[in-house]
């Protein structure tokens, strides 16, 4: 069983290395015919990469999806903010206790329109990961989010949230400052809003930490993102006392974007470039942009009260209940 997305991406990386070597040769080659031959081989290689990715990524198992959703090079919230928005000003502070950089937030423009962005943010390197606590927000993060939601309401700005967290921070400090209350209060605040809310799961949708900022009118999932009530490792440990059964747990939990769509819990799965968003961030971002644009346009036809009611109805319907 794979423990990293790199394992099954290895053939691609090898082929890519081959391509760059061939390209270097082709660049230096002065003989036109020989160069043409090289270029033909390059094309062949590129085709093979594409085919491999297409085949390999179309049959990823749930556990592989988890690994891919967690993959280091995936675009993070700030990457999407930079690509999709203009004039973003990051705001900070919960006005209660502290600053939390596991969640980033602030006003920006989307297609020229004023919006509020809130999203989990992972770190790109060791320092940043520590500083952002691996995108595991503390109560401060959710209370900052609440402050942003209130601002969105006050100034009639749509809210766009990006979901990408393994979980909310489970530490002693977070307990003592009410991480549970913070998550619940953030959800409650989102239910109160009378502006449109769109959430996009871009990586890990990790249980309470994720849904704490995902009470949207439309919830979208990128193809290779996951959304789960518990990490597969935790599920395996609790149910089968064996964390190694994480792949079985991943399968059982139905945590892939396809499953979420099938269960009717998300409105749309957003295609990613073959091999995942990180292989072509610009293309991935464009798909996200188009989807947000579409959904926001639709939602903006509703009144504030309709939006609030819609959000209520959306979540109120979730659940599989039998009986008279």
């Amino acid at each position, binding site marked *: 069983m794979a423990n990293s997305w790199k394992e099954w991406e290895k053939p691609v990386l090898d082929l890519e290395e081959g391509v760059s070597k061939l390209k270097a040769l082709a660049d230096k080659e002065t003989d036109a015919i020989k160069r043409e031959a090289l270029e033909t081989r390059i094309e062949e290689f590129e085709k093979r990469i594409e085919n491999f990715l297409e085949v390999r990524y179309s049959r990823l198992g749930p556990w592989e999806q988890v690994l891919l959703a967690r993959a280091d090079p995936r675009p993070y919230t700030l990457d999407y903010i930079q690509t999709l928005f203009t004039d973003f000003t990051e705001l900070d502070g919960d006005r209660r206790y502290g600053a939390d950089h596991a969640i980033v937030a602030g006003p920006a423009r989307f297609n020229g329109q004023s919006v509020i962005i809130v999203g989990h943010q992972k770190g790109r390197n060791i320092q940043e990961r520590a500083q952002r606590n691996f995108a595991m927000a503390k109560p401060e993060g959710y209370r900052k989010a609440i402050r942003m939601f209130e601002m969105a309401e006050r100034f009639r700005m749509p809210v766009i949230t990006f979901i990408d967290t393994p979980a*909310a*921070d*489970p*530490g*002693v*400090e*977070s*307990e*003592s*400052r*009410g*991480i*549970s*209350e913070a*998550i*619940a*209060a953030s*959800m*409650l605040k989102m*239910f*109160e809003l009378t502006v449109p809310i769109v959430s996009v799961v871009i990586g890990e949708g990790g*249980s*309470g930490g*994720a*849904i*704490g900022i*995902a*009470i949207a009118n439309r919830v979208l999932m990128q193809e290779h993102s996951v*959304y*789960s*009530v*518990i990490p597969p490792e935790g*599920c395996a440990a*609790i*149910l089968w006392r064996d964390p190694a059964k994480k792949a*079985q747990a991943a399968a*059982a*939990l*139905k*945590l892939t974007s396809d*499953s*979420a769509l099938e*269960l009717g*819990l998300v409105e749309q799965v957003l295609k990613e470039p073959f091999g995942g968003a990180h292989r072509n961030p610009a293309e991935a971002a464009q798909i996200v942009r188009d989807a947000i644009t579409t959904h926001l346009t639709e939602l903006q036809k509703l009144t504030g009260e309709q939006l609030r009611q819609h*959000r*209520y109805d959306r*979540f*109120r319907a*979730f*659940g*599989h*209940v*039998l*009986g*008279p």
Partner: protein
Amino acid sequence: MPLRKAQAPNPNFIQCKGCKKTLFVADFEANLRVCPNCDHHHRLTWQQRVEVTFDINSFTELDADLYSGDPLQFPEYEEKYLQAQTKSGMKDSLVTGTGTIDGQLISAAIADFHFMGGSMGSVNGEKVARALERGVELQCPVVIFCASGGARMQEGLLSLMQMAKTTAAVDKCRQNGIPYIAVFTDPTMAGVLASYASIADVILAEPKALIGFAGARVSAQAQVLKIPDDFQTAEFVLRSGMLDRIVHRKEMKATLGNLCSILGHRLTAGAKS
């Protein structure tokens, strides 16, 4: 108020889970299953909770027939679920209905930890939401007794969505001025704590109840900080500002009755019925 007898090897004696002392069952139950020696509040079944909370014969169960359909076809779920049903006589981990406290109508939900650890799946969430919405319909206060290890894994993302669904129902109560009081009993954890439980207007807890977001082991692993001795107990959570009061089981009914009647002063069903 004597409670139904518990099953024990010698039906006249029971060992306290707090101080391990052997207690006369009759004394123990007359004392509402609170140890007369160490004051340990033992967990109650939902029926016992009804007995110690509501006016005699006032409680009517509603939504009694709802059950889960194993939507994910999760391994072993069906068996476990049927087993829990057989053992407990319940359909799922939470009972809802209406009852009166000092004659005042209350919409109630009572979780029972004995059913799959009081875990919140679709049915638990649905019933909590209905109990809250029923407060709006009937114009009466809502009281929820929480007892849960968290979300029910076997219903996957649907269980997670119950956090949102129940929160939505709390919002309905807030919009309509319906008082909602949560009582945290042992244990109140994870997905339940991080949703409808923590946003009640008033939050009471039983003494020493375990209350927390993450399992204590998880928290201990998560950082090397010194953990207070009473970490994740009601006493710790009160100090942390997350509770209104710790209320002894003997005082719970009176406290609930008083709060419901003061906060629900404008409700049509708020008057003694």
